[in-house]
């Protein structure tokens, strides 16, 4: 037989023990302190982000094809519906435009600032979604290089998507508001009643989010009303649309109400998002 250098081999029990302890220590460290996996993630994302970007493009092409076939009939019907809606909306828009000019005049009179300043935003592409079926966080292709920071708000088109939970040099993870672990302090636009919007996996399948602790003593909130982020939230900027009230029921304590809302964002087909480059605390 050949002579071999004596090689240190550990039996698998020891290897398991060592790594188990290592993992438990890491879990405790990351759970109890603010330490994040930032630097490690940066290294990993240099390899994976280009891969994911490439494959994702193939994926969206495939999805595009299959959806084209499935949805053609729907699209034709929808097209007519939408045309009607355009007429409707144009008239509505004209009225609103007039109101807007009036409002601008009045604001000037009262020397009010614009209520919601225009935030700087960065557009990013969704390049990967959670590897399992339990959570709803996803990775976008912009990172600290583009000025992104943890807790920045992410929006898409018409409403709130979520907030950034961790950032590496060229990618960032976003926690969606429909995720089971997400909570947002919100308010009803028309009545300014505060409530809490909580993602829920059970409701997620019906594309809904839970509302709870709504104080609506005058019974004014009805389905269809807009729900926006509240001033009292310490992570979300105020006034971003979350969705529309779907159902509202009085809780058993007779003081608060809870129910569901329909998110303004289509989370199933999320491809591009905008990140607002302003933190609430700043």
């Amino acid at each position: 037989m050949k002579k071999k250098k004596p090689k240190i081999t550990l039996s698998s029990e020891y290897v398991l023990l060592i790594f188990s302890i290592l993992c438990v220590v890491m879990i405790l460290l990351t759970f109890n302190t603010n330490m994040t996996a930032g630097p490690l993630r940066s290294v990993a994302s240099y390899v994976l982000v280009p891969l994911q970007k490439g494959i994702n493009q193939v994926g969206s092409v495939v999805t595009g094809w299959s959806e084209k076939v499935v949805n053609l009939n729907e699209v034709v019907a929808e097209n007519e519906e939408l045309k009607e809606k355009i007429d409707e909306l144009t008239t509505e828009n004209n009225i609103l435009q007039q109101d807007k000019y009036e409002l601008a005049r009045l604001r000037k009179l009262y020397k009010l600032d614009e209520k919601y300043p225009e935030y700087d935003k960065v557009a990013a592409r969704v390049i990967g979604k959670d590897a399992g079926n339990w959570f709803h966080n996803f990775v976008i292709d912009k990172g600290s290089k583009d000025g992104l920071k943890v807790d920045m708000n992410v929006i898409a088109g018409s409403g709130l998507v979520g907030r950034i939970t961790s950032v590496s040099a060229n990618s960032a993870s976003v926690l969606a508001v429909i995720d089971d672990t997400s909570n947002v302090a919100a308010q009803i636009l028309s009545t300014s009643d505060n409530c809490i919007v909580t993602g829920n996996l059970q409701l997620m399948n019906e594309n809904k989010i839970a509302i709870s602790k709504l104080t609506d003593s005058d019974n004014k909130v009805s389905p269809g009303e807009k729900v926006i982020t509240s001033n009292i939230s310490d992570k979300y900027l105020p006034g971003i649309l979350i969705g529309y009230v779907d159902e509202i029921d009085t809780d058993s304590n007779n003081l608060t109400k809870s129910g569901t809302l329909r998110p303004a964002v289509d989370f199933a087909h999320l491809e591009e998002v905008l990140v607002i480059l302003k933190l609430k605390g700043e």
Partner: protein
Amino acid sequence: MKRKVVVIILVLICFVLQCTVLKAIPFTKVVPNLLVVVTSSFGFMRGKKEGLFVGLCSGILIDLFYSDVLGFYSLLFMYIGYLNGFFKNMFYDDDIKLPMILITLSDFIYGCIIYIFSFLLRGRLDCFFYMKTIVIPEVIYTVVVTLVFYRLIRGINRRLEEEEKRSATKFVK
């Protein structure tokens, strides 16, 4: 050395597939768990130690990208690989029954543990709902995918083993 590189590339490919293309298939709501298939396969094909390492690689990837707490998935996948390693002596290359049973069990236990630690402990008690909508569909989908995917893994493993044998005999001469 070559084995390590091949295995790591396989894990990377599975991870990337799992969070891009497989998520984008419009007819299915759940994703098959390829990483569990790879981890468990290498566990019973190659033994505890290799299962452990493949599991660790898969777990670290998920931890880095999608987990708030670093180490949870590493630990979980590592134990899946390790425990599957106990069945190495019962494993025959041509038998498909044992791999299917082990992979099914692994994925089921994986789902249960995630439910217990990240949902049950936060007070989401409706366990039947989560079983019905996530754990069971995921297991079924994974098993269907495994029917094809397992052959691929076995093929890769056979190739690697043949090559290792060849280079070993060359060395003895």
